[in-house]
C-alpha cells in the first residue's frame, strides 16, 4: 500500500472516498484504511503518513511509514537506504589504510571513535601494539568525541521537541571548541582520518593539552548551564518521561548497545567489559537508568558526559611522553597476515565493531561494520507503538542515529 514516491501516497482502490474530498481532486493523497474492531464493526479510519525522507526531523534521509489512528501510531515501518554508499564493498577493494578516511564518513559526528574502532581491528589482525602515549591520545580524542556526540544529541533532541534551536545552539557552541581542538590536531574539523594502525598520525603538543584542559574545565560549567535550562523543565519532563519505553528484555534481544541499553538498566559498557585501550587505568562510573524511556536516555547521556569529563581530566593529567607509533607499523605496502579479527569499542552511540578477514593481500578479503545506529534503530517500532506523532519524533531523536552509519 506504500507507493515509492515519497509524499505522494498512492491511493488505495476503494477506500479513499471516506474523507470528503475537495471537488476536482483527481487523485487523493490520503490513504485511508478502514479500521475494524475484533467483532468486525467499523471504528473510524487509519491514516497512513510517510514521514520522510524530506521531513525536517528525521535526521537525514530516513523515512518512517506511519499508520496513525488519530494522532496515535498503530504501525511504523522504518525505511532506510537512501544514503547507501557501498561502504563495505569499497573497503574490500581498497587498501587497509585507504578505508580509514571512509570510516570518518560513517558516523560523521564521531569520526575519532570510528577511526579507533577500525584501527583496533586492524591492529588485532596485524598484531600491532600502539605505544602508551598513543593510547592516551586515543582515549582523550574518543572521550572528547563522546562529549561532542552527546551534546549534539541533546541539542537535536530538544530541537525535535520544538525548543527552536536554543539548546542546539548552546550545544554547537561547545562542540565548536572541541572541533577547534580536533582541527588543530588532525587538520580537519569533522573528517579527521587521524588514527593509524599502531598509533596516531600527529603528536599532541603541550599547547594542545593546555587548551584541551581549558575546554574540559569549561565543559562541566556548560553542563551545569545546560541542565539548568533543561533537566527540570516541566515541559521536557512531561514530554519525555514514560515515553518510548524500551524494556530490558527487548533491548537485550535486539542487541541494543550503548546509552540506550544502559538507559534500560543493563550494565554493559565495552569500556568496562573489554577494557580495550587502557580504559582499566581510569576511574569512572557507568550511569544506569531504570525506566528506559526518553528521559532516561537523555539523562544517561548527560551523566555520561560528566563521567567523560572525569576520564579526560585524568588522561590529560597523566599522559606520558614517548613515541606515538608502533615501530613495526608500515604506511606503504601494509599486508597483514591471513586471518580474521573483530575489534569493537564503546562508541558514543553503542558498540561499534569492525570485522575483518585478511587473505594476506593489501585489501581486506571481507570487511564488515557493526553499526550501532542501525541496530539501535531496529526497535523503533516497538518503542513508538501507541505513542503519538509528536512522540515518534523525539523517540527517534533519543535513539541517536546518524544516517551515514545506518545506510553505510
Amino acid at each position, binding site marked *: 500500500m506504500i507507493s515509492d514516491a515519497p509524499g505522494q501516497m498512492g491511493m488505495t482502490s476503494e477506500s479513499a472516498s471516506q474523507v470528503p474530498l475537495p471537488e476536482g481532486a483527481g487523485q487523493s*493523497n490520503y490513504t485511508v484504511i478502514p479500521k475494524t474492531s475484533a467483532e468486525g464493526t467499523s471504528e473510524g479510519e487509519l491514516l497512513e503518513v510517510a514521514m520522510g525522507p524530506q521531513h525536517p526531523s528525521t535526521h537525514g534521509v530516513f523515512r518512517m511509514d506511519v499508520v496513525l489512528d488519530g494522532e496515535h501510531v498503530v504501525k511504523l515501518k522504518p525505511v532506510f537506504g537512501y544514503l547507501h554508499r557501498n561502504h563495505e564493498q569499497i573497503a574490500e577493494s581498497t587498501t587497509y589504510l585507504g578505508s580509514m578516511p571512509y570510516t570518518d564518513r560513517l558516523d560523521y559526528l564521531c569520526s575519532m571513535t570510528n577511526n579507533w574502532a577500525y584501527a583496533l581491528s586492524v591492529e588485532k589482525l596485524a598484531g600491532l601494539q600502539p605505544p602508551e602515549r598513543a593510547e592516551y591520545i586515543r582515549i582523550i580524542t574518543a572521550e572528547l568525541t563522546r562529549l561532542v556526540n552527546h551534546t549534539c544529541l541533546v541539542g537535536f533532541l530538544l530541537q525535535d521537541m520544538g525548543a527552536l534551536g536554543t539548546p542546539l545552539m548552546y550545544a554547537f557552541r561547545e562542540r565548536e571548541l572541541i572541533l577547534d581542538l580536533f582541527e588543530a590536531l588532525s587538520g580537519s574539523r569533522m573528517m579527521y582520518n587521524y588514527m593509524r594502525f599502531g598509533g596516531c598520525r600527529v603528536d599532541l603538543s603541550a599547547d594542545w593539552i593546555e587548551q584541551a584542559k581549558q575546554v574540559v574545565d569549561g565543559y562541566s560549567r556548560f553542563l551545569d548551564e545546560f541542565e539548568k535550562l533543561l533537566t527540570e523543565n516541566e515541559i521536557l519532563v512531561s514530554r519525555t518521561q514514560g515515553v518510548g519505553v524500551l524494556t530490558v528484555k527487548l533491548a537485550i534481544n535486539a542487541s541494543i548497545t550503548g546509552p540506550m541499553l544502559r538507559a534500560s538498566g543493563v550494565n554493559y559498557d565495552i569500556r568496562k567489559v573489554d577494557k580495550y585501550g587502557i580504559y582499566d587505568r581510569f576511574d569512572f562510573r557507568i550511569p544506569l537508568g531504570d525506566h528506559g524511556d526518553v528521559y532516561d536516555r537523555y539523562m544517561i547521556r548527560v551523566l555520561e558526559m560528566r563521567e567523560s569529563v572525569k576520564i579526560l581530566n585524568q588522561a590529560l593529567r597523566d599522559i606520558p611522553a614517548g613515541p606515538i607509533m608502533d615501530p613495526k607499523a608500515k604506511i606503504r605496502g601494509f599486508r597483514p597476515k591471513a586471518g580474521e579479527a573483530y575489534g569493537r569499542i564503546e562508541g558514543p552511540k553503542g558498540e561499534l565493531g569492525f570485522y575483518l578477514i585478511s587473505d594476506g593481500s593489501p585489501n581486506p578479503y571481507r570487511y564488515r561494520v557493526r553499526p550501532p545506529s542501525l541496530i539501535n534503530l531496529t526497535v523503533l517500532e516497538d518503542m513508538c507503538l501507541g505513542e503519538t*506523532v509528536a512522540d515518534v519524533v523525539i523517540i527517534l531523536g533519543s535513539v541517536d542515529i546518524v544516517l551515514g552509519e545506518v545506510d553505510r
Partner: protein
Amino acid sequence: MIGEFFKGLFLMIWKVVTDQPDPKVEFVSVFPATIQPIISVLLSIVPIIMVFASLFALTTLLERKGLGRIQNRLGPNRVGPFGLFQPVADGLKMLTKEDIVPHSADKLIHFLAPIVLLVPTLLAYAVLPFGQNMVPIDMDAGILFFFAVGASTELSIFMAGWSSRNKYSLLGAMRAIAQMISYEIPLIISSVTVIMIAGSLSLVEIVDKQSGYHFGFLPHWNVFTPWGLAGFIIFLIASLAESNRSPFDIPEAESEIIAGHLTEYSGFKYALFFLAEYLGMFAVSGLAVTLFLGGWRAPLPFLEIVPSYIWFLLKLMGLVCLFIWIRGTLPRLRVDQLLNFAWKFMLPMSLINLFVAAIWHFTSVWNFRGAGLGRWLLCAAMIAVPYVWLGRTLIGNKKITHRTYRFAN
C-alpha cells in the same frame, strides 16, 4: 481650500502628537459633507494598518535578533545598518516567490483561507483603545466584539488545512482547532474577571476604571491585585496558545508535522498567514494590556506627559518581547498535554480566579484597620493554594517524578 486642507492636516498631526481629543474633526470638515464619513473612517483604518504592519516588520526583525542573541548568535545584520532592512528583503522575497497551489487542492478555499484569516484579525483592532483619544469604535460590547471576531479565525485555519489536501495540513488544522477552542475558554473567563470588576464590556471604560495611583506611585492596574495577577498570567498563557506561539506552536510544529496548515502555502499567501498570525498576537497582547496593564495609562504620575499611545505601544512591545523570550526557551508541549493543561489546570484556575475576584469585589466594603492588606492576603492565598494543589495533581497524575540514577563501577 488648499490652505484649509494643510491647516487641518497640521492641526490633526499636532493634536495626535499632543494627545488631544478629537484630532480628526478639523481635517475632516475640509471635505464635502458627502464623503466626510468615508474620510473619517479611512483616517482611523489606514494608520492602524500602517502602524501595525510596520510593527509586524519590526517584530520579525526583533524576534530574529532577540532569538539570535538568546542563542548566542548575531542575528540578521546584512541588509542595511544593523540589518534594519531585513524585513524589507524578506517581504520582497515573499512577494516574488512563486505561488504554488497543489494540484489536488480545493483551489477556491485554498485561496480564501488567508483572507478569511486576515480580515477578522484586522477587525479586532476596531475596539482597542490605543490612546487616551484614540479608539476607532467605542463600542458598548467591545470585548464581546473582540472575542467574536477572534473566534471566527478558527474556521479559516480549518479551511487552510483541509483545502491543502496534505495530511500534515489536516493534522495541523485539527490540532489548531482543538487548541484554539480549548484555550478560548480560559481566555474569556480570565477577561470576565476584569469585566466583572469594571462592570462594563466597553474597553474604554475598563481602562478608565484603572486610573489613579495607590500611595501616589503604584498605579491602579488590575495586574497589581491578586486576581489580576493570576488572571494576567492565565490570559498570557491562553493568548500564547491562541496565537500559536511556542510552547504552544503545536499546529505548526515543524519537527512533527512540517508546518501544519501552512505546509502548502507559499509566496504572498504564506506572507498573509504570517502577517495575520503576528497581527493576532499584537491584538491579543493589546487586549492584555488594556485589561490588566492599565491600557494607555502611564506607570507613574509624572510620566503622564508622555503621550498615551506611546505607553500603549511600549507595554505591547514588552509583552511581545516576553513572547519572544518564551519562544527562545521552551520546548513544545504535546497535544494531549496541551489539552490536559487547558481543561485540568487553566479552566479550574480561571474559575477559581473568577470566584476570588468576586470575593475581592465584596470585600471592598471592609473598613477596619489593615483591611487592604488582609484582603490582599486572603485573595492571594485563595489563588496560591489551588495553584499548588492543581499543579501537583497535574504533574502527579502522569507519574512524573524526580529521578535518581544508579552508577555501576
